[in-house]
């Protein structure tokens, strides 16, 4: 990383930390939300008899652990999908977009750098979910293969960022509406196995689920976190997940560039 790049990344991270700190109750409210949703699913899990659900066996047979990972990474996905678009929207609302873009940094860098804080916070929220699950509700997790976990997390973030860039391009161009992120988030809730194993879906929906990045992310992450799976065991899920950023990241960069050029052409870069 060059000093110039490090300086830009640090500038955005510091700015966003200060902006976050200026909203006094955000942290407390976020933590309370995590606590409440974790508690809700803890009690829902008491209704679920693992013996009656053979599909759960592949994940260690514990519904609370299964669903906690689902909701933790679903929340993380939400932040990743929306954070880039929200960053653009925030610059539009503050009126700072033009001033930021007159600095010597590329548009994709500016938008990614604007999202660093949200992405770090998303990771922290996953930690909140798992931490509350362990400390408050007695969840136990087996030892984890760190390399396998890191690979799955990086690929998951890369896939979501590609979609996030496409969403940001929509916001840059149309100011409102975020169809790409909306579609993926809605599809993930139903198809990706957030609340129940994908294997209980009808076959046609299982085929559709393969087209949703979250399906592969959750499958790999659950194996790593619940079954101590090694890198070789999660490799098929990692490879499937890797296909998404390969396609989506260039599309996202192209979308951003196109939206930027259109906004400059119609003079709407500074509009909100």
């Amino acid at each position: 990383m060059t000093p110039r790049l490090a300086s830009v990344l640090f500038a955005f991270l510091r700015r966003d930390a200060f902006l976050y700190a200026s909203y006094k109750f955000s942290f407390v409210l976020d933590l309370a939300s995590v606590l409440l949703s974790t508690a809700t699913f803890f009690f829902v899990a008491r209704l679920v008899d693992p013996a009656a659900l053979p599909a759960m066996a592949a994940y260690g047979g514990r519904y609370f652990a299964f669903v906690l990972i689902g909701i933790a990474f679903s929340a993380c996905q939400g932040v990743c999908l929306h954070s880039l678009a929200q960053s653009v929207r925030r610059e539009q609302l503050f009126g700072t977009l033009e001033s930021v873009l007159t600095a010597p940094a590329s548009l994709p860098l500016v938008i990614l750098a604007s999202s660093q804080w949200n992405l770090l916070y998303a990771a922290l929220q996953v930690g909140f979910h798992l931490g509350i699950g362990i400390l408050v509700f007695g969840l136990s997790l087996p030892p984890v293969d760190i390399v396998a976990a890191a690979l799955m997390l990086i690929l998951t973030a890369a896939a979501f960022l590609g979609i996030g860039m496409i969403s940001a391009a929509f916001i840059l161009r149309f100011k409102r509406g975020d169809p790409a992120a909306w579609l993926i988030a809605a599809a993930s809730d139903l198809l990706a196995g957030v609340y129940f194993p994908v294997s209980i879906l009808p076959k046609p929906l299982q085929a559709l689920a393969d087209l949703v990045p979250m399906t592969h992310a959750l499958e790999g992450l659950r194996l790593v976190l619940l079954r101590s799976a090694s890198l070789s065991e999660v490799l098929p899920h990692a490879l499937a997940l890797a296909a998404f950023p390969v396609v989506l990241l260039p599309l996202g960069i192209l979308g951003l560039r196109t939206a930027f050029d259109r906004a400059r052409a119609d003079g709407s870069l500074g509009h909100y």
Partner: protein
Amino acid sequence: MGLLTAHAGGRPPLLLAESVSKTYRGSAGAVQALDAVSLALEAGSVLGLVGPNGSGKTTLLKVLAGLVTPDSGRVAFDGASLAGGPGDLAAETGFSPGEERSFYGPLSLIENLRFFGRLRGLGERALAERLEGLEPHLGLKGFEDLPYQQASSGVKARLSLARALLHRPRLLLLDEPTRSLDVEAGAMVRAMLRREYLGAPERVLVWSTHRLEEAWETSTEIAVLDRGTLAGLGSPEELLRRTGAANPAEACSALRREASGRPGAPA
């Protein structure tokens, strides 16, 4: 120093705009903001843009900053085109927009400057040194920790100037920089701008204002815009002489009357 035509001999112009036209199209119809505007400025020039609201001053500044793409025509600084957007010449350009809403409201003034300074590669020490140098002219001391949203319009205007000047840009573009300043502060700012840009090698300042006397006093060249067209262009003395006017206001009126009488002028 002075205004050249694009084809003049001698030194090439540092800032060049050739036949720049821009029409905004929206649901309410089309508005021609600029119509074949051409400028060519040598290093050390200070160009004042004047004209009524809606005459195209802000659009021209944004085109020069690379924030708005012209429909036709060309803009170049030091021979480099701005066609690709502000990133192409960002390191060389400082831009102060006309709107107050261009900083992060909850952040303090100094935190805003730290952010924009770092984007331009200025670390803590370089930023402090630069602000120290600007302090006698901008007077921001004592306001550093004030949240931007609580600052007065005058302080906000000075902060916007400080941001535009932080990296000592070769091309400085200011949209009504003295609009919210009192007479004394405005004079200090204009004196500083003249000292930093007037006759400076490799530097150009383009600024807009509604205060015609200030424009005449500060600029080496004046561009009078009227409904997107260049109604007059020349040194302050030259425009007074050409129109036979006794003051800048009369000169501007005469030039705008003359321009609206030209064939093809907007109705």
